[in-house]
């Protein structure tokens, strides 16, 4: 038995799943200023008449960190950044307490300039005086050699509550993103810790003693314990929950698009053979770029509540803003939802008010009421699909770095569209008609996000580098480094990577049954040659436990859906 809970902007959804499918689902309003209460009332309701001892797994997805960032209620963080040659590190300033210090490491991980202890101590004192309790330390190329970050932490350790190091957030190269990610980690840490410790305690009081799993932006889970080292991974877990909830209905061995049509935005994501695609480097939203592993999603400012207008050229404009709910539900301006009501697709709501709203648009467009409603509906489908195809073009235009990938690179080409969100079922038929692509409205659309959270399995990634000229194999993100001989091979590297991944996954709470979904994301091998003679090899790999659903539940969900 599994519980999945997803805190959304307006509702908190909870599902109770067994191997027979959805046993129960509840929806409570989200109290944005008291998420703890929302989570608690969700759990209290779902556990009515359920023996908590039968629950084997609990997964929670919240907007806690996302909200804190949006509302700027995060904790102030001191950042210490050591850059060396390159772009001016002041360009990556995270806030007032940001200090660029000396010291430098090059791309091979060799020390170019040492850390100046006096300088670090002085920065530490300044931060102390400013009342800073949490610190992030990032050095350029720390993923090749983290010794400067470790040294800085050692110098400052006793003076701060917690110090976060850049090389722990990712094995990927990207100094500015590493700074932003380390900063965010430290900034949301106290909030995340207090919140989940309170949740854990309350669940224990209800008799739920299984370890809590938390959903990440990459659609995977981690244990509460594991989340403390990297709480920023919970940012944007909401869209991830929905995408994971679509997987049971995705076609096997084919490409599919997931569209989650909400009130004001539509989220767009991609599945290849039931596996969601990930952002190549990390979450990016507008100007914000991070190294947080994330499902590849984008959103378009259009949804059921988008405000409708007619511009001076007599063209229909949809959104991107929301002024209120649909007129059918007491709102001030007409919305796409009103069009659905007028077309008779949606039965709920005040018909007369919806017609009144659509009529005002129809008059400006010089159309009949029904005709205008139909026009609105088509335009909405158009906007959503246009954005989707643009994203697919971007996806397929992704640069490649080998002749092989250039010639054989995968082209994403969807056969199916999976629709989620409130108005999904009304759109399915229309989109299928307009675009001749099989379009499925996901069953249990209103709680699919909670189902996605409940069934998401543990994900993680390790990056391993070997440099036989320097005689080391390292995975600094995992605090791993070992000497190797000149004969260290691809097989040796893979073995090291698999064993590190297995440990990391088990630490994050993975079920040993689900450890077989390993994927080699990257492998590179280079001969190091100087003056025409070979000096050694560089071997690099990145492997992941890819996002997906835990075994044993999917087929029941499908059958149940057909029975519905």
């Amino acid at each position, binding site marked *: 038995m599994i519980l999945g809970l997803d805190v959304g902007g307006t509702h908190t959804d909870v599902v109770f799943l067994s191997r027979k499918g959805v046993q129960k689902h509840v929806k409570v309003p989200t109290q944005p200023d008291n998420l703890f209460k929302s989570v608690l009332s969700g759990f209290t309701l779902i556990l009515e008449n359920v023996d908590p001892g039968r629950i084997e797994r609990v997964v929670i997805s919240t907007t806690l960190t996302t909200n804190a*960032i*949006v509302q700027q209620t995060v904790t102030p963080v001191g950042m210490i950044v050591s850059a060396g040659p390159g772009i001016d590190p002041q360009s990556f300033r995270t806030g007032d307490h940001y200090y660029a210090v000396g010291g430098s490491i090059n791309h091979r991980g060799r020390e170019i300039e040492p850390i100046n202890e006096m300088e670090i101590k002085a920065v530490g004192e300044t931060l102390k005086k400013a009342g800073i309790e949490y610190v992030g330390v990032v050095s350029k190329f720390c993923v090749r050699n983290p010794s400067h970050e470790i040294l800085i932490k050692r110098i400052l350790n006793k003076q701060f509550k917690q110090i976060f190091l850049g090389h722990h957030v990712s094995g990927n190269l*990207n100094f500015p993103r590493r700074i932003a990610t380390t900063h965010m980690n430290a900034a949301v840490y106290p909030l995340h810790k207090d919140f989940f410790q309170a949740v854990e305690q309350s669940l224990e009081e209800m008799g739920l003693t299984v370890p809590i799993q938390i959903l990440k932006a990459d659609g995977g889970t981690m244990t509460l314990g594991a989340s403390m080292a990297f709480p920023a991974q919970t940012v944007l877990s909401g869209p991830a929950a929905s995408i994971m909830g679509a997987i049971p209905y995705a076609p096997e061995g084919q490409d599919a698009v997931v569209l989650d049509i909400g009130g004001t935005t539509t989220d767009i994501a991609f599945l290849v053979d039931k596996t969601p695609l990930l952002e190549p480097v990390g979450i990016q939203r507008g100007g914000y770029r991070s190294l947080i592993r994330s499902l590849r999603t984008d959103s378009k400012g259009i949804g059921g509540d988008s405000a409708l207008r007619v511009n001076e050229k007599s063209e229909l404009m949809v959104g991107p803003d929301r002024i209120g709910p649909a007129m059918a539900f007491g709102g001030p301006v007409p919305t796409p939802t009103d069009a659905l009501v007028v077309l008779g697709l949606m039965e709920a709501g005040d018909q007369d008010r919806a017609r009144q709203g659509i009529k005002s648009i129809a008059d400006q467009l010089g159309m009949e009421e029904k005709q205008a409603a139909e026009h609105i509906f088509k335009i909405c489908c158009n906007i959503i699909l246009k954005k989707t195809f643009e994203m697919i073009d971007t996806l397929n235009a992704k640069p*490649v*770095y080998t002749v092989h990938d250039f010639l054989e690179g995968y082209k994403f080409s969807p056969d199916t569209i999976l629709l989620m969100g409130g108005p999904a079922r009304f759109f399915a038929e229309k989109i299928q008609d307009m675009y001749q692509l099989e379009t499925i409205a996901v069953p249990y659309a209103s709680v699919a996000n909670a189902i996605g959270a409940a069934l998401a399995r543990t994900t993680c990634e390790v990056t391993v580098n070997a440099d036989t000229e320097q005689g080391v194999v390292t995975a600094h993100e995992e605090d791993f480094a070992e000497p190797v001989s000149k004969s260290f091979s691809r097989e040796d590297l893979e073995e090291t990577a698999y064993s590190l991944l297995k440990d990391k996954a088990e630490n994050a709470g993975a079920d040993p049954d689900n450890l077989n979904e390993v994927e080699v994301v990257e492998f590179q091998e280079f001969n*190091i040659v100087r003056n025409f*003679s070979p000096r050694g090899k560089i071997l690099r790999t990145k492997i992941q436990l890819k996002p997906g659903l835990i075994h044993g539940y999917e087929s029941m969900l499908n059958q149940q859906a057909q029975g519905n």
Partner: protein
Amino acid sequence: MGMNQCLTSRRKEIKGDTMLNASHKTGLVFFPAFDWAIDSTHPEREERLLYTQDQVSEEGVFDIPGIIEYKPEIVTPKDLQRAHFCVPDEHTVTTESHHLISAGGAKAIANAVMLKEVKNGFALVRPPGHHAMRVTHGGRGFCHINVEAVMVEYIRSQFGVKRIAIIDTDCHHGDGTNDIFWHDPDVLFISLHQDGRTLYPGTGFPGELGGPNAKGSNLNIPLPPGTSTKGYLYVIENCVLPVLEAFKPDLVVNSAGQDNHYTDPLTNMNFSAQGYARLTAMLKPDIAVLEGGYAIEGALPYVNLGIILAMAGIDYSGVVEPDYNPEKLKQSVSVTDKIKKVCDQIMTYWGQRYEMREAAGEPGQIIIRHREVFYDTDNIFDRQKEKIRVCRDCGGSFEVDSKAVPGHHVLGVHIPINACKACREQGYEFYEQADKTRYQRIYLQDRTTDLYEIKQ
């Protein structure tokens, strides 16, 4: 999802005026061909751009607003046929597709620049191309096809651009590009390189000024070993920029070789990352294409970063090699003197270009040139005999009789893109009168109609 806007606006607020931003849009193609090498210990091998990629990735260059990464395209035989006579055919010369993707990288940047998606662009591609000549029987100086020439001919045909300048700052004489535009008065080719008496390919002396119809539109500036940043920038300021000013190109291309770096294993120069960035900022190329550069660990990561930032109009003052010591790299007084002298000589030639063309022959006259070309990479020896029609109205049609050992005996006829009526007729006369029994293949490259034809 308020997250989008909020994260963005928050970011701006925090960063204030320190936020990194390109002053305009700059396109990049990065194609390191990580799975291809000439052979495993050859300088032109997989590892060459690895550390550059590491540096550029770690600096977050592709995240900078205004910098746009493009995927390379692949060039077609049609693209090659505008710049080359591939012997026996395109497929044989470019058996391996990396040549086509490397040139395709430059083509992708050209498209982005010409369609005004970006203001300028840099193709970081390998293998290089500037030693590949118009007649190409195989590999020369690591090059099979000329990336810049293929790109320039594509731009001329596709976008109708008339006047183009190619500034080759690779440490080796760009003899391939020089050969391809030898007779073309509308393409200004300037090569800065280490003196040919001290380095491959051993050519590129000031007196090599172009064919009779294009004298002075090819300028070769040999520099003494030990030339430092100061010397390079002196040539740019006192020679290249004034010539560009007078030539008024519609498009400036930089063959951005990086083997004049003070740590390059194949050359003897003292150029630096700061110098490359300054050079780029001064030259303001619309399109830069990577050529050579084999100090792959100590130089390329910094030089490439410097060039990218300079192209994007971003502060590059922090891009310095870890072991950079300008005192140690100072050029001697005699080097400074030699550089001044060669610049003066070049400016004199440039000033006399029209007189030199007048003196080269009478319009309608056919001038014959004999030459020999050695292919070091593929060990081919090519003996050529070229005939060109002297003309004041266009670049003049010519034919090249090329006999390669081992290899083929062929004849290539070229009619320039802006050919006058008389030269066009002359070109067809060359083609029609060619003795089929003497040649294995006879090619016609009629650029006026973008036609390429073969008789066997």
